[in-house]
């Protein structure tokens, strides 16, 4: 397993390089001009100089090579300097956002906490709800619990989050006035009061996303448990005189978890990607919102870097899913 992990990690390097190249070429092909938003009164040759100052005058392979050096050498060196206090980076050029003229990585790090808090928490809550609901629904198939669960997850899965989000805002912010409709990123949790405020502004976005995630994952869990419940080994476990709880939670669950864990692990990169629409609805300035703004502003370095970070996360969590699968099911060993 260890050798397998190392091998897969090494294979990931060329994969990611190819992905970064494709991203770069695609973004280069995309129509749009970073100076398009500038006032029309700026003369053409000035705009041309601005473009050149952004590095757009260089041929594409040079620009790609520069991005590679900036992202893979300069950025880690800067990070290291910051962590250790030594001056390793000595003014090396970082990846700079065209829009804000500040380093892309710094902006990402600024926005990451909001996304992780709101989207990450909703994912964790979603999984924690989905697994027990899935187990009980499957074990008591066609019971009222299962029927209600099925109905709720169909609703949760088929109604888009921007609709449930707006619905919640209408009911709880507009009509009842209990919860704020905007997510205030500047809020710092310093005391009990601000903690409560933080909690209140998180309730709606988190529950919208948690419902969506739970709906999806609980269906997987239910189906997977149902697949196993009628198998022979379950009968053996019952014939041993074990308690039903042990039959289900030890024997059936271990077997049912593998496909669910895969789905859950592959969903994690999506957490970092932010829930683009939900972040827009609740004005959470997380990564999803950042991506949208950057695309609209033709901020190519930002889009390139964000897209590449998502690609890295997807590759990593694919590996994680495969490793977890192997750990859960001894029949799958990769060495």
């Amino acid at each position, binding site marked *: 397993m260890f050798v397998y992990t190392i091998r897969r990690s090494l294979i990931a390097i060329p994969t990611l390089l190819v992905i970064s190249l494709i991203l770069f070429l695609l973004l280069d092909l995309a129509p749009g001009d970073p100076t398009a938003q500038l006032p029309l009164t700026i003369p053409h040759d000035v705009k041309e100089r601005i473009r050149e100052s952004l590095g757009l005058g260089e041929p594409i392979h040079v620009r790609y090579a520069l991005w590679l050096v900036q992202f893979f050498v300069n950025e880690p060196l800067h990070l290291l300097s910051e962590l250790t206090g030594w001056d390793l980076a000595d003014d090396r050029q970082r990846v700079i956002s065209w829009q804000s003229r500040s380093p892309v990585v710094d902006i990402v790090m600024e926005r990451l906490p909001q996304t992780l808090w709101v989207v990450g928490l909703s994912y964790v809550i979603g999984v924690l709800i989905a697994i027990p609901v899935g187990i009980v629904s499957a074990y008591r198939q066609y019971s009222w619990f299962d029927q209600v669960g099925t109905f709720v997850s169909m609703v949760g899965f088929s109604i888009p989050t921007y609709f449930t989000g707006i619905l919640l805002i209408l009911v709880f912010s507009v009509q009842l006035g209990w919860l704020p409709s905007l997510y205030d990123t500047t809020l710092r949790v310093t005391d009990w009061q601000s903690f409560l405020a933080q909690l209140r502004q998180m309730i709606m976005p988190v529950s919208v996303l948690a419902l969506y995630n739970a709906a999806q994952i609980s269906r997987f869990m239910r189906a997977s448990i149902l697949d196993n419940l009628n198998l022979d080994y379950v009968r*053996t476990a019952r014939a*041993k*005189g*074990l308690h039903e709880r042990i039959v289900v939670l030890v024997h059936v669950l271990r077997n049912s978890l593998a496909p669910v864990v895969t789905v859950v692990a592959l969903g994690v990169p999506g957490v970092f990607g932010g829930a683009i629409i939900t972040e827009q609805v609740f004005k959470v300035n997380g990564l999803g919102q950042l991506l949208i703004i950057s695309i609209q502003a033709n901020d190519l370095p930002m889009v390139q870097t964000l897209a590449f970070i998502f690609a890295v996360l997807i590759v990593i969590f694919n590996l994680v899913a495969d490793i977890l699968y192997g750990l859960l099911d001894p*029949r799958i060993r990769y060495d």
Partner: protein
Amino acid sequence: MNREPLLEVRDLSVSFHSRDAVVHAVNRVNFVLHPGEVLGVVGESGSGKTVTMMALLGLLPSPPARISAEAVRFDGQKLLSLPPDRLRAIRGHRIGFIFQDPMTSLNPVLTVGYQIMEPMRHHLGLTRVQARDRAVELLDLVGIPDAARRLNDWPHRFSGGMRQRVMIALALACDPQVLVADEPTTALDVTIQAQILELVRSLREKVGMAIIWITHDLGVIAGLADRVMVMYAGQIVEQAGVGTLFEAASHPYTRALLGSVPDAGGVRRDRLMAITGQAAVLYRPPEACPFHSRCDEAVARCREEVPKRHSCGEEHDVACFRR
């Protein structure tokens, strides 16, 4: 045999209810099992052999199964009216099970050792170390080489025959008084079958439990059982000592069954006898002899009344009006 029976079943019926049909899988079955005896249960697929045994121990999911009986007594306890906890204390502890397909009967993600130790830790309250020692003994007993090391292996590393040995070790873990073996050799190669049979025979001498051996293989029954029950369409049609049954089968169905066995050692007959027609599936409680439509000897009464089992020799009874 005037000993107190270990297991006594009177008028057990099992039916399965689905939305648009009711299947009467087992109809008013009576039998006893004495301590230390090997009872063979034969019958074709769907004759209710497995369902009978599963019903006794609450292993049938209900719904769809509905079970009723006059009495089911195991060692003085009424099995069917026991609360689930007490029934579980019997299952896997005093009555062990071996199932048909060893390839799927073990949990693929748990080690063989864990699965064997589980009933011992659960029923006998053994510590991990005690259970482990006993598990090694058991694997030795069922003839798995290098037992101590193989405890840590998963089932997929064992062959079919070896897995069935594991199943047997698992069933014997708590020293049961009864071992219910549900076609344990059907899914195995003939050579492995012979090994498993030999193993069960020797275990029976060593351990001395009673065995209910469900099979449709008459050859296996001949070499193993003390007494045989023949089931057809959810009823026991004949019951006799093993010698009597093979020499003087009485029920037309039993005779036909014996006639359809190829004779490997003997003279080749022209054709194997086949039983014409299909096995009956009962959508209503039986009102006639279930075999009458396939029986050469059927008379009018066979179509109007269910025959009761009556004695027709020493320890030999049959459910047929013509005997």
